[in-house]
């Protein structure tokens, strides 16, 4: 197949040159880098970082026919495998006909409606490609259209965003049918039907999904790991039947869009190739209206297919995607199969030039992870305790454990009620909220052009919070250890221990002889002892403490507390937290000035305060909190870039990025700092040589960018999919784009 595609491509290139009505466009994009990289921040170990990535997009057009292909020669690329030999070079290929009907054969990258059912795309920045190889046919009139897609492919993905290579894959085949009607100018109705079959090997299930503790599917697979390991099935099948309905209209100036998708899919089950069919659903809705000069957009999502492995279903993310260098350091972990979220976006113009933007986004999971309750039932031998206490109170309390006898233990999982929106917005520190992986982000921005568009200024405020991880491989997000003791309270609920201690000391009090104490005290004083010595001697002689005698109520209360503390110490009912949270405040500022001759200066500065908390607190019922295993990392980061664009010499940019980290934990306090700086020159040949045929032939429509220095690594995200760029040190990067 690849050979056929290749030959069609070569033929089209050739024909385009000899037959003038064939248009050919080639775009070259080259990335070359040579320097060092580190695998983690503040690591001192470096390895070589060399990139040689070349992409060629080749488009050929003849009348209604269009051929698209992408060739890649990479050794190695920024992400993905090396492509240096024949058959590897062809990344993408498709032939298209656009006439009375539209037909496309080859790699299909398309989004249908809002992408809840079918959304295939390629993103080079994250090395993502969920396209299918097959056929797409569509036919349309003014009032309706119909679309059909069929194809299959191997979907490749990486187990960790840090990985350079995709390390897992599975095969999938999809048949999709959609029809839309436009009964009036104002109404759009769409119906989608899809069948998808996924064949996935047991090693992908266990080594990838069965290790992904952040998902419901992952948890389910871990619990059933033995079953999947022991059955003889090597390839499991997930079959999904999808029905989608959407409506778009405008009523009283309000743009309304709603899409509901029902997904009946088979759940992975040990021992059977294709498990039982279960129901899932997806919903996305949006409203837009202009209210008193404010452009208000509200979006809502509810994606609930927690045991489904989604390949093509990528609906709207419904949150504000990072648009600046530092904002992208903290990113919401989008869950396309188990998430509910809201987004409110308000745009307002003040005058003709100043734009105000307010954005509030929240999300949480629909299905939370369970909490774990460990219970221990203990019988307290109060009769023996009270007998011994009368003889020797202090020793009895110190040996409290002797009077406890465990009768039964066990564990149960408990689930949580859905939290309300306000709890998510305020990120309540409550297991009923945190177990839903809440996320909230608030952005407020102001930007404007002044002085006849010569001066530009913008400033923003971004507040970000989310639970990055609730629980872990071995720990639940919340484990409650609960001890129930019988024998402390009687049938009426009265604390018999307290009652006994009170009556015991009251009796003692009445038997104490205060006069005897003072007589003894005076006696020892007359013998020449000082007052302290006389007090100790008198106390020893009469067998009680005069201070206790004078404050008997306090003494009784303290004794009761001591006994109860002993109970708690022996039966430490507690709650054990286990989660990671991140929060950040980012302030991006930029300003620019454009001169009359086209030169310009741009200053960009960004400040971020970021916290990463690993909470492993143990909170006892007594109120004591053990924070020994918890840690808190505080980051303070600045990013500054200064750009000067000269119309003849190109664009010069100097960048500086500094970060300080303070780690607080039970161990020694750690403080690190690091900075990265670089210099970049970009030259746009298009503008300089567009009128000179020879130079245009050599360099026209091209752009060259050379960077020297260091760059901090971090997440690169697009449409909710992320990859991690390694830190780059002491080297150069070159990017060359040529539009032929």
């Amino acid at each position: 197949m690849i050979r056929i595609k290749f030959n069609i491509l070569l033929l089209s290139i050739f024909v385009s040159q000899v037959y003038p009505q064939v248009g050919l466009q080639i775009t070259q994009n080259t990335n070359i880098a040579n320097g060092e990289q580190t695998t983690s921040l503040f690591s001192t170990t470096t390895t070589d970082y060399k990139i040689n990535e070349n992409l060629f997009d080749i488009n050929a057009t003849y009348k209604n026919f269009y051929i698209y292909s992408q060739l890649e020669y990479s050794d190695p690329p920024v992400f993905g495998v090396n492509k240096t030999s024949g058959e590897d070079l062809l990344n993408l290929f498709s032939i298209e006909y656009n006439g009375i009907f539209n037909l496309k054969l080859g790699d299909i990258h398309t989004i249908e409606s809002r992408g809840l059912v079918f959304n295939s795309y390629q993103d080079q920045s994250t090395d993502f490609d969920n396209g299918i190889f097959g056929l797409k046919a569509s036919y349309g009139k003014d009032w309706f259209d119909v679309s059909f897609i069929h194809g299959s492919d191997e979907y490749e993905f990486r187990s960790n965003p840090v990985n350079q290579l995709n390390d897992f894959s599975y095969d999938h085949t999809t048949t999709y049918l959609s029809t839309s009607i436009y009964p009036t100018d104002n109404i759009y109705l769409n119906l989608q039907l899809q069948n998808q079959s996924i064949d996935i090997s047991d090693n992908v299930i266990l080594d990838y999904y069965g290790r992904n503790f952040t998902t419901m599917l992952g948890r389910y697979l871990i619990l059933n790991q033995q079953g999947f390991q022991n059955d003889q099935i090597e390839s499991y099948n997930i079959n999904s039947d999808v029905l989608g309905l959407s409506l778009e209209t405008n009523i009283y100036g309000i743009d309304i869009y709603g899409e509901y998708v029902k997904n009946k899919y088979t759940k992975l089950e040990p021992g059977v190739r294709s498990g039982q069919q279960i129901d899932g659903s997806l919903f996305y809705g949006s409203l837009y209206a202009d209210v008193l000069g404010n452009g208000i957009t509200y979006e809502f999502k509810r994606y609930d297919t927690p045991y489904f492995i989604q390949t093509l279903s990528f609906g709207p993310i419904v949150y504000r995607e990072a648009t600046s260098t530092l904002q992208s350091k903290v990113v919401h972990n989008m869950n396309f199969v188990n998430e509910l979220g809201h987004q409110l976006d308000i745009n307002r113009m003040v005058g003709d030039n100043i734009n105000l933007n307010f954005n509030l986004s929240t999300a949480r999971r629909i299905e939370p992870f369970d909490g774990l309750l460990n219970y221990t039932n203990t019988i307290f031998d109060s009769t023996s305790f009270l007998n011994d206490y009368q003889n020797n109170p202090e020793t009895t309390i110190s040996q409290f454990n002797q009077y406890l006898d465990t009768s039964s233990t066990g564990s149960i999982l408990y689930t949580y009620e859905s939290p309300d929106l306000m709890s998510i917005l305020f990120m309540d520190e409550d297991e009923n909220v945190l177990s839903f992986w809440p996320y909230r982000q608030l952005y407020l921005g102001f930007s404007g052009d002044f002085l006849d568009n010569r001066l530009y200024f913008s400033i923003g405020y971004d507040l970000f919070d989310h639970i990055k991880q609730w629980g872990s491989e071995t720990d639940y997000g919340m484990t409650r250890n609960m001890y129930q003791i019988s024998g402390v309270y009687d049938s009426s609920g009265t604390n018999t221990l307290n009652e006994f201690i009170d009556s015991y000391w009251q009796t003692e009090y009445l038997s104490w002889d205060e006069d005897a104490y003072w007589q003894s005290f005076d006696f020892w004083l007359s013998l020449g002892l000082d007052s302290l010595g006389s007090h100790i001697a008198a106390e020893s002689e009469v067998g009680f403490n005069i201070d206790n005698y004078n404050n008997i109520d306090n003494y009784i209360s303290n004794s009761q507390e001591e006994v109860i503390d002993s109970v708690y110490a022996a039966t430490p009912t507690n709650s054990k937290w286990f989660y990671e949270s991140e929060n950040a405040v980012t302030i991006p500022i930029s300003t620019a000035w454009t001169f009359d001759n086209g030169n310009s200066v741009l200053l960009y500065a960004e400040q971020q305060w970021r916290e990463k908390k690993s909470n492993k607190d143990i909170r006892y019922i007594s109120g004591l909190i053990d924070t020994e295993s918890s840690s808190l990392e505080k980051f303070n980061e600045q990013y500054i870039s200064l750009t000067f664009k000269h119309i003849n010499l190109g664009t010069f940019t100097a960048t500086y990025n500094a970060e300080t980290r303070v780690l607080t934990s039970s161990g020694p306090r750690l403080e690190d700092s690091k900075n990265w700086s670089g210099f970049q020159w970009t030259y746009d040949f298009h503008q300089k040589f567009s009128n000179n045929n020879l130079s245009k032939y050599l360099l026209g429509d091209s752009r060259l960018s050379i960077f020297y220095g260091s760059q901090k690594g971090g997440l690169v995200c697009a449409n909710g999919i992320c990859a991690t760029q390694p830190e780059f040190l002491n080297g150069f990067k070159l990017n060359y784009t040529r539009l032929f």
Partner: protein
Amino acid sequence: MIFKLSVMFIFSILLSSDTPEAVEDNRKYQLIPSIGDKELVFLDGKSVNFSDLYKDGPLLLSFWFLGCGPCVAEMKHLSKFNAKYNDTGFKVISVNTDTRNKGKVKSFFKKKKYTFDMVFDLNGKNGVLKKFGGSSCPYTVLVNTDGTIYSKHLGYERGDEIMLEKEINELIKYNKSISSLDSIKQVDEIKK
């Protein structure tokens, strides 16, 4: 395979449409790609017949997405050019490549009160942008009235609008000249 590809690639570059030798050729400019009726839609959801966009005058296509700062910075200048050269038949069409947050795009676009029309590329960055040889935004394509590409340009930096305006003037001038030639040809044909 690499050899075959290399030979064909070099061959194609040597003969590609914007070589100096090709200037006098009918193929001075590249043909626009084939674009289906349902690939681009207006804000109200109506589909775009692409040839309608350039039949009355030259066209500037500007590809952008909401989170792209340089794109937004360029748009206010494009709006100005669209109004300034409107009487020549020239127009700007802004092509948005956001596929899933159309509400926010509409809100932004309507608030800014740009003078040009905006269309959505239903396939986002994998759609018409790629067909015109682009891969990132901002990406600008100048289209002649005869369905050929006058020029393509990647990126925007403040101040670039000065050169862009010069290029728009050249585009308008060139398209006037080809329309005059067409008129002369039509007159000749009638005379015959």
